[in-house]
């Protein structure tokens, strides 16, 4: 069978000593930069690219790819432990992951993320091996109109991210969209909301917003008083997922993998949607909807799997078409070229050892990552025991350094402070950061594709309906909206005056872990009071 021959060729390449070694170096570095808030895989790959010029091409690409997907693993760690997401995907993980850490369940959250990522990575690699060329041709059918409808669909579905008042969530999305418009308009070059500051022409850095809104705001709130600080220093209940946890994460991991693998193929923004959509889906179909946002392990396992599956399948456009979906991929195109390989459809036939070797190495890399990350869970969890006087300044320091090193723009650091304070105020008002971040990420994508589709169609808005893929997504968006709104309307009519108890909790965004959230964990020892 041809596939088996190819895989045999791939593994014989990937299992060469130097390839396994550099694969390990890559995933190790990737994990490290993923863990460090701010320092991203793009900067790392750019710095290491010249070093790889002297390697064998396949070795170089194996290492660079390892950094990329390794960073996707590592990114969840800081999101879970200290509410500091470094990428849009990790922001979703922070929602429930950090809530779990606050309840002393950081270990299961980290383990669920690692296991989910491993399964997703493995499955997506198989998809890459089996069906890369046909899948790539699907990606090419996506033009601006299709992307607009897809992102709109994703935005509507992801409104599920909000856990309280729908009105406040909508206001946050709108604010996020507005913040996303800062910078130079890509169609006319007109600077928008930059106040004559050239540093703002590139827009507000996502990492600054995420680190400020989640991390710094969280720290400010923790500093308020001793009682609510239990979060960071609470007793670790259990390091590994319980049997109940394991049972609960199977479905989310599998659904997240499928969703992420499918969305990752689309170079125009699919991988951004993967974790948002997975979270929304899990929340929608879960029997424990009220737990989402309060430490539901499904809310960690699903998005993390989706994110990792998307990271793997986003190599499909690169390897089969030579078209990069992500800045890291663009760097890898550079690596291909420097090694005298023209990235494009010919790579599979001209350089089979390289193509299949790289794919096989991803599987090896995923094994290495899970071996690397699972033992680390215990050590990471211990980090939560660092006294807060030491931990908090360090978090802010590293976040500032990391963010500055992204593009050496001091405004990115100012933005951390600004969004930290804004995030704190918003929390006090009962508004949540996640919908804001969603608007910030998806708003500009929506605008970009909407305007491009209309430019190409010369202003004829019917393209969104006459192009079949686009029409399907619009129909799905309408359906999602109806499904989301109907029960609310019905419920409103029934209990117009009965205040929902969940609404009571909104003004206090850090409800002490409610007994309800634990009623499935009764095999655990009772909660031990905070030590400090």
């Amino acid at each position, binding site marked *: 069978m041809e596939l088996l021959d190819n895989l045999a060729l791939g593994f014989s390449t990937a299992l060469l000593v130097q390839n396994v070694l550099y694969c390990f170096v890559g995933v190790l570095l990737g994990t490290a930069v993923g863990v460090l808030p701010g320092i991203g895989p793009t900067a790392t790959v750019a710095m290491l690219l010249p070093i790889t010029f002297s390697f064998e091409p396949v070795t170089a690409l194996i290492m660079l790819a390892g950094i990329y997907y390794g960073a996707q693993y590592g990114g969840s760690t800081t999101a879970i432990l200290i509410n500091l997401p470094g990428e849009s995907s990790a922001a979703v993980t922070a929602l429930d992951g950090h809530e779990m850490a606050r309840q002393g369940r950081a270990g299961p959250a980290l383990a669920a993320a690692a296991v989910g990522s491993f399964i997703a990575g493995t499955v997506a690699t198989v998809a890459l091996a089996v069906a890369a060329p046909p899948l790539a041709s699907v990606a090419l059918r996506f033009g601006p109109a299709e992307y607009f409808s897809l992102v709109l669909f994703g935005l509507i579905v992801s409104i599920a991210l909000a856990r309280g008042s729908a009105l406040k969530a909508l206001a946050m999305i709108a604010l996020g969209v507005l913040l996303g418009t800062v910078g130079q308009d890509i169609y006319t070059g007109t600077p928008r909301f930059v106040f004559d500051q050239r540093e703002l022409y590139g827009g507000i850095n996502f990492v600054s917003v995420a680190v400020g809104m989640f991390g710094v705001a969280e720290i400010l709130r923790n500093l308020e008083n001793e009682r609510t600080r239990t979060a960071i220093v609470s007793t670790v209940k259990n390091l590994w997922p319980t049997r109940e946890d394991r049972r609960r994460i199977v479905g989310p991991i599998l659904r997240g993998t499928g969703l992420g693998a499918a969305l990752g193929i689309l170079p125009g923004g699919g991988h951004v949607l993967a974790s948002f959509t997975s979270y929304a889906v899990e929340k929608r179909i879960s029997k424990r909807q009220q737990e989402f946002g309060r430490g539901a392990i499904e809310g960690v396992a699903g998005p993390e799997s989706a994110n990792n599956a998307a990271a793997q399948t986003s190599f499909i456009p690169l390897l089969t*078409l030579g078209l990069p979906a992500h800045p890291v991929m663009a760097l890898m195109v550079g690596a291909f070229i420097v090694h005298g390989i023209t990235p494009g459809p010919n790579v599979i036939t001209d350089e089979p050892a390289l193509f299949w070797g790289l794919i096989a190495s991803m599987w090896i890399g995923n094994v290495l990552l899970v071996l690397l990350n699972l033992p680390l869970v215990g050590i990471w969890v211990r980090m939560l025991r660092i006294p807060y006087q030491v931990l908090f300044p360090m978090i802010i320091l590293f976040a500032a350094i990391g963010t500055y090193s992204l593009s050496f723009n001091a405004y990115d650091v100012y933005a951390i402070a600004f969004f930290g304070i804004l995030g704190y105020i918003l929390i006090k008002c009962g508004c949540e950061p996640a919908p804001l971040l969603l608007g910030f990420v998806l708003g500009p994508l929506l605008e970009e594709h909407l305007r491009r589709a209309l430019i190409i169609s010369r202003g004829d808005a019917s393209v969104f309906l006459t192009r079949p893929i686009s029409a399907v997504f619009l129909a799905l968006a309408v359906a999602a909206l109806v499904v989301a709104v109907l029960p609310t309307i019905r419920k409103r009519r029934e209990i117009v005056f009965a205040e929902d108890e969940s609404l009571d909790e909104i003004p206090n965004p850090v409800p002490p872990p409610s007994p309800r959230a634990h009623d499935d964990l009764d095999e655990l020892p009772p909660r031990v009071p905070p030590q400090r």
Partner: protein
Amino acid sequence: MTTTRHRVAARMIAALGALSLLAACSGNGGGGSGGDASSYPDQNITIVVPFSAGGPTDTVTRMIAEPMAAKLGGKIVVQNVEGAGGTVGAGEVSQADPDGYTVLMHHIGMSTAPALYKNLDYKPLEDFKMVGLVTEVPMTVVARKDFAPATLQDLVAHVKANADKVTLANAGIGAASHLCGLLFQTAAGVKLQEVPYQGTGPALTDLVGGQVDFMCDQTTNTSGQIAAGKVKAYAVTTPERVKSLPDLPTTAEAGLSQLQVSVWHGLYVPADTPDEIVQKLSEALKVALADQGVIDQMAKLGTAPVPAEDATPQAHRAKLEEQLGTWAKIIADAGVTVS
């Protein structure tokens, strides 16, 4: 009982800290003292690339950084300061200490920025000293695979007849592909619907996917797709054919000789940098451009180092002066301004 745990955790934190400091500091040449031309360089030299990591300009910079560093006997660090079509990075270097430790790599955008950006906070000829030209990357006119015109002349006739239907993609306002597109419209005497993208990657993706009709971009970006037959290529915009695409005619051969453009790259330092230091940098640049490894790597990108006599401050200044005039006119005629 928690002391050992504390220690482990503290060690982890310390290691993390060291790593992140390393990452942040690696981009820092040190700044400060410097300025003594005879001992130059006695600290890291930073080459600022005002575009994103992994782009063609970044790739070219990283190629020449190592042989230049070897000749100078120091270390060179490449730092990407992105934003506003390269004007953020250029503005930063114009304000840097004129001690030769902050160098700017910029491309054709240096000559177009004054026309595109009205409130530019630096003047290319006055606020910089030129070190030398590096390379001139040819551009190619490419179209979606199933676009009707067969030759460049067919293309001109086709877009003139269908000016209200044809779409011309580019990688964003001020990008090389935008400039080449402007020049094409001037040369062909037609005004087309431009479709800007955020960078070459997405533009090329939509061209390969047939969402837009044609564009003009650097060989660094297009030669792979041309070789694979995923796009239709009409011509290369330089006086001579490109080695990596021997069958592709030049624009002059194909009958549109006004369409002559290349993405030229050059190195700059702040205006008050001592001439001896500029000379040392220029010498190092010449050595790097003669390096066989650099020549080979550039050839793979479809380009070549400039001849040694162009890697000099004089040739570079002449090129910049000429280009500033050329683009001021083209951009004014096209009525494009950014701010």
